């Protein structure tokens, strides 16, 4: 059992800059109290303008939010610092995202229909036989997806601004706007950019794991994993193997609490690994991952090395006043699989829908209660998914025997069907109780066998 030192979670809200919690809340709570006295139903109508909302960050979360806001008749400003950003990312989207967000099929570079899970002792299990012909996991290039969503938001009326968000002035009374300070680049590359300000009524923070909006509202910190990835161009005959297959390697050598992967991209593969607890050893884990896949990526050339943080759980505070966080900024990445694109886009959309509804298509001012509805809906809809994945990670990623059992379980068809159904459609389906019971028994059997072997292994040492 890995000994995790549990940091006291309630203390995370205290930011280092403000050692004393109380003054902070009193300065915020005065306008907060005022916000809550007036229910949204009695919010004043905006007399001569529509509601103004700024979305900071133009990734999937920002793009989806801006589109929904603009469609809802709200004056939307989408502020993105780098319009051609190639965000380092696994790039996998579930099938339901294509339908829910009306994505054109040419955005998807590859359809992954087979996966191979490889245990620490190299037992390899193929999964994907239960997939129907129209089901797949879509692999996208982030720069293509992000640009598409942003352009669609712009077509619907959002103002896309190329700028870097710097800071935000909080309103002192409830009817004052938020003043955003940002550096506007105006599309010129390498230019200095000019300082600009923007007054808006509400803000959606979609600026990713190192969110500045989160810092501005003292959202608190979260634990995060480091994902390290190398893009490798392998010879064409080896690329055929990865035509529609992704691989997942588990083992202590590859990662102590996550997995190593080989994902096919448009014309190369991405080989990477991640960890939360041993970030300083990430290069070692990457070498081990490349070693495990050595035969299959032999002769490949590394064309790009990238790393990015992945949040492990939501920030302590995802909402403050009329500022809400969505996507990676809020920490909506699942455990076990580390999936974030779909949840980012969906949370952006959900938050925007709450604003549109609370403001009655931009005619009234919103307040914190309206934004809280988004949080309620989100937690209610996706909490089971997050919890199940957390349990899976805790049970199956904790040690090598557990990982061996995990790979053994993946060979079971019922497991494959349940896994893919819940991944592709984002619902935790209850399944057949008899099969569930059989599955539970088999899981326990696998775990017991694997740990018995591990005990024997340790005896060999001694």
């Amino acid at each position, binding site marked *: *059992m890995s000994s*995790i030192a*549990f940091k006291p*979670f*309630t203390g995370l*809200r205290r930011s280092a800059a403000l050692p004393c919690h109380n003054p902070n809340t009193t300065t915020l709570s005065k306008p*907060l*109290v005022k916000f*809550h006295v007036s*229910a*949204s139903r009695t919010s004043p109508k905006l007399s001569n303008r529509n509601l103004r909302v700024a979305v900071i960050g133009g990734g999937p979360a920002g793009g989806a939010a801006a589109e929904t806001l603009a469609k809802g008749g709200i004056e939307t400003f989408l502020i993105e610092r780098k319009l051609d950003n190639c965000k380092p990312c696994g790039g996998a989207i579930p099938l339901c995202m294509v339908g829910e967000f009306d994505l054109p099929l040419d955005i998807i570079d590859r359809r992954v229909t087979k996966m191979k899970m490889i245990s*620490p002792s*190299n*037992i*390899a299990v193929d999964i994907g036989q239960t997939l129907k012909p129209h089901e797949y996991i879509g692999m996208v290039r982030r720069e293509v997806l992000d640009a598409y969503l942003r352009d669609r938001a712009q077509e619907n009326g959002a103002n896309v601004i190329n700028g870097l968000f710097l800071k935000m002035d909080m309103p002192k009374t409830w009817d004052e706007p938020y003043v955003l300070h940002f550096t506007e680049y105006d599309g010129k590359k390498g230019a200095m950019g000019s300082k600009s300000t923007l007054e808006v009524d509400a803000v959606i923070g979609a600026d990713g794991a190192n969110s500045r909006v989160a810092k501005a509202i003292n959202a*608190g910190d*979260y634990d995060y994993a480091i994902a390290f990835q190398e893009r*490798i161009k392998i010879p064409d005959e080896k690329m055929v*193997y990865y035509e529609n297959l992704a691989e997942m390697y588990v083992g*202590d*050598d590859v990662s102590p609490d996550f997995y190593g992967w080989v994902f096919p991209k448009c014309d190369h593969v991405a080989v990477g690994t991640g960890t939360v607890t041993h970030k300083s050893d990430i290069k070692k884990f990457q*070498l081990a991952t*490349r*070693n*495990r*896949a*050595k*035969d*299959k*990526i*032999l*002769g490949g050339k*590394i064309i790009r090395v990238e790393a990015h943080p992945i949040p492990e*759980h*939501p*920030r*302590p*505070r*995802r*909402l403050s006043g009329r500022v809400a966080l969505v996507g990676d900024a809020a920490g909506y990445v699942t455990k076990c699989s580390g999936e974030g694109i779909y949840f980012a886009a969906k949370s952006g959309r959900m938050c925007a829908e709450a604003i549109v509804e609370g403001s009655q298509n931009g005619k009234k001012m919103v307040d914190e*209660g309206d934004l*809280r509805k988004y*949080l309620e809906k989100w937690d209610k809809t996706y909490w089971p998914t*997050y*919890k199940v994945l*957390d349990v899976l990670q805790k049970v199956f990623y904790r040690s090598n025997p557990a990982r*061996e059992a995990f790979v*053994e379980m993946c060979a079971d068809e019922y497991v494959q069907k349940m896994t893919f159904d819940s991944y592709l459609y984002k619902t935790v389906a209850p399944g057949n109780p008899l099969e569930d019971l059989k599955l539970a028994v088999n899981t326990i*059997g*696998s775990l*017991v*066998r*694997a740990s*018995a*072997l*591990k005990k*024997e*292994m340790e005896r*060999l*040492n001694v």
Partner: protein
Amino acid sequence: MSISMALFSPPPTPFSLNPNFTHKSTHFPSLNRPFLHLSTPKSLPDNGASAAAVEDSKPNPEDPALERAVEGSSGPNGAATSAEVEVSSNFEDPSWIGGTWDLKQFEKNGSIHWDAVIDAEVRRRKWLQDNPETTSNDNPVVFDTSIIPWWAWMKRFHLPEAELLNGRAAMIGFFMAYLVDSLTGVGLVDQMGNFFCKTLLFVAVSGVLLIRKNEDLDNIKKLIEETTFYDKQWQATWQDDTTSNNN
């Protein structure tokens, strides 16, 4: 890729055949294979003899490709690379055929000796834990522990431990029964009818089952904390606003 080859630090091999290779880099494809396997003493003792036969299943084209990638890392002179190539040793065993254990080789007087299969798999996993290997599409590992029947696992692992725990429970039970009897005068039969004694019995049995070592107490506490930690992280956003809870 080439960097990983150079950095692939092998376990030290007593039979170091490196000096022989340095000047024979051009002869790699043909000469390499037999030497490759004689220099891996980590597996079973009778490895060397049959290893060459087992490994013929590995496809040839890999070697020249291996050479090319390795030579790329140390310039035109392929001499230094011979060390890396030579020590990419895989797990070999005469009973490990086609990615799984050949059960026929474990037969003794007609019936399969499952303990030996378990021992063999333990050795394989230990070997791989210390020397992680690359996976290969041509030699996939397809071994599944469930081919070993459940009673073999029971006999080997469950029964000895059950004996130990039952022994502990019996000793505790006898001593506690004697103690309670001497303190209260209630005999064993009357003790079993009393609710408090039944509770004590339950606590004693579950204690013996759950707490085997001193560390288990801490582990159990941590486990309980772990199960609810994620929930707490998610609900943190709601904790701050219990006072202003309307709408």
